């Protein structure tokens, strides 16, 4: 009988982690639906970016209040996880506070966990107020209606509950230590929960043990549940921020990629010795001509798809976007959310059809992202600059414009005029190329 809790714990752990692994597999499969792109260059620069931007939160603190609050929750998450390690070991081995022999170090650790837990609760309350009471503009944009809003708040509630469970567990433990209950070795410092333990003073030893055990179990089960909530939530950024900043753009922001497939065709067109009607030679396996640009998620690169899963919908991009600020439909955050939603839809389609995608008559373009949004972009890079985790919404907008123009000839009329001017006389306006030097003598 004594082993029952250990077994139960082991089962919970295996189920929790098992589901998580399944989610990670699904996530990687979906991301790999994207086109291949070579990001194996500049490894040291990439590591530096990851350390600075993700680990070091360098872009978060550009906005000081949100940055500081986020730093607290982030540090709390990283550091309090040491406690989770102890909980897991205790759970498997049937021990209690296995790290207690560390003595003073243990006191410092538990003490700092408690202070952080309290700070996290404060930060989360501030976050909740920003979202629900002050209603900061970026949290109430149209794309935040429904699930995104609920998701945001749910994460805050889960965090508060987890922190409260942690403190309650410690408070009951502290009380039991005071009462010299043999299983509860005197260990740890409780700068926060000692004040809660006052509320537990009148409880009997058995009730206290019940409170302590319940809080302990709910805390770890809560963490396992939260781990599995990630895949369904915007909160995936706690993991993906790291690879996403690693694989982020290294070139100057203004540099847009040159499509190799286009280079091939343009060179052929411009080569006077090339015979456009030549039959393909026997040995060259004529590939299916590549589709130019993107109309659906499979046409985007896997980094762009990872970008979509990494987005935590903070809306800094949208609040910096000149088009959005002047009331246009375009919201860079919505571009990312739409990409993820469509990718999830494609993923479910694969699940339902044994891994073979069955055409569903839908695509990212028009069914999710409208042309009006795409044409409102000024390519100013403000969204790219604002993103704290190196997401590039602009690259998706450009790929979709490429599809519209090169596959569908569906540019706005004025732009078609501009382009035919460039084709005819090398300038966006209908002026004679021979007049290019007239300005000198005017």
């Amino acid at each position, binding site marked *: 009988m004594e082993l029952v809790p250990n077994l139960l714990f082991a089962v919970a752990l295996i189920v929790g982690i098992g589901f998580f692994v399944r989610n990670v597999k699904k996530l990687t499969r979906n991301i790999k639906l994207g086109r291949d792109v070579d990001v194996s260059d500049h490894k040291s620069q990439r590591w530096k970016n990851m350390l600075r931007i993700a680990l070091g939160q360098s872009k978060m603190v550009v906005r000081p209040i949100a940055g500081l609050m986020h730093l607290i929750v982030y540090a709390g998450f990283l550091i309090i996880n040491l406690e989770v390690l102890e909980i897991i070991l205790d759970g498997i081995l049937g021990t209690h506070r296995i790290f207690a022999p560390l003595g003073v170090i243990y006191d410092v650790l538990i003490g700092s966990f408690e202070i952080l837990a309290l700070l996290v609760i404060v930060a989360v309350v501030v976050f909740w107020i920003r979202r629900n009471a002050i209603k900061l503009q970026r949290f109430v944009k149209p794309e935040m209606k429904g699930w995104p809003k609920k998701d945001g708040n749910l994460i805050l509630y889960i965090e508060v509950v987890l922190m409260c469970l942690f403190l309650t567990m410690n408070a009951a433990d502290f009380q039991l230590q005071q009462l010299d209950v043999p299983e509860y070795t005197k260990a740890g410092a409780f700068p926060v929960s000692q004040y809660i333990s006052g509320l537990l003073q009148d409880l009997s030893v058995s009730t206290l043990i019940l409170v302590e055990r319940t809080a302990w179990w709910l805390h770890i089960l809560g963490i396992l549940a939260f781990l599995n909530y990630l895949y369904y939530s915007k909160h995936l950024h706690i993991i993906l921020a790291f690879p996403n900043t690693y694989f982020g753009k290294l070139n100057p922001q203004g540099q847009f990629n040159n499509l190799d497939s286009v280079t091939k065709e*343009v060179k052929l067109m411009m080569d006077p010795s090339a015979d456009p009607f030549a039959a393909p030679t026997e040995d060259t396996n004529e590939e299916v001509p590549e589709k130019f640009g993107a109309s659906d998620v499979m046409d985007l690169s896997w980094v762009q798809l990872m970008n979509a899963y990494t987005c935590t919908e903070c809306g800094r991009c949208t609040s910096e976007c000149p088009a959005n600020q002047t009331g246009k439909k375009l919201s860079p955050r919505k571009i990312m959310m739409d990409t993820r939603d469509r990718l999830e839809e494609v993923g479910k389609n694969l699940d339902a059809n044994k891994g073979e995608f069955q055409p569903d008559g839908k695509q990212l373009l028009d069914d999710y992202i409208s042309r009006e949004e795409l044409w409102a972009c000024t390519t100013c890079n403000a969204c790219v600059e604002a993103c704290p985790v190196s997401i590039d919404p602009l690259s998706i907008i450009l790929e979709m414009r490429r599809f519209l123009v*090169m596959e569908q000839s569906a540019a706005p009329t004025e732009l078609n005029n501009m382009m035919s001017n460039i084709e005819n006389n090398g300038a966006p306006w209908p002026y004679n190329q021979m007049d290019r030097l007239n300005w000198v003598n005017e």
Partner: protein
Amino acid sequence: MSEVLKVKTMEEFMAEGKQPEILFWVGSAGSYDDRAKKISRAFVKILNAAQVDFAVLGPEESSTGDVTKRAGNEFLFQMQALMNIEILNGYEIKRIVTCDPHSFNTLKNEYPSLGGNYEVFHHTTYIKELLDSGRLSVEGKVYKEKRITFHDPCYLGRANSVYDAPRDLLRKTNAEVVEMKRHKKSALCCGAGGAQMFKEPEKGDMDINVLRTKDALETQPNIIATGCPYCNTMMTDGIKAHEKEDSVSVLDVAELIANSL
């Protein structure tokens, strides 16, 4: 501006069997747009004053393709790029300077992988170099009592991290240089980029240039300076929308320096 400018084409250099120090890429706006042509002239006035042996391509120059690339027409962009590269490489051009941040960005960042490798400068950086090396000096009288604010062009600032050169130049005019609330990395776009210059904006409740001009006017400037012909158009229109065209003017950094020589 009736003074005579010294401008030679690459073709003329070739005929003389000479190579210029640098090529001035005038750009489509600088060649045809009435307002931007004045910027080209001001920049040449500076080049002449510093006795820079420069060339232009003249009728051999063609759009860099920046705007078509951003509109999504990669085909047309690459055709323009390959054509220009053929000409530039044919003349063995090594260094290029331009007053247009869009041409600057495209020539510097997007031409190399297509075979065009040049050292490319924005005119503000180049003028700064001329001053630093002592080839050019500024008297700095005309704007002494003026207040100037600088609008960062997206393709110069965020896109290529050039923030200091234009500001250093503005200080040389001895004017008071004031910053807008959003500047450098967080500067707001003027609304022209991404091919917006050539189309009507989508439905919204304001035009971007009007919003950006509001930022600028909050600093109570006499002059809004910029370093891009398209920003210049947008800010000039913005000032008209705010009915401030009588008290505030929009000038390129090159014009401010040319007038301060």
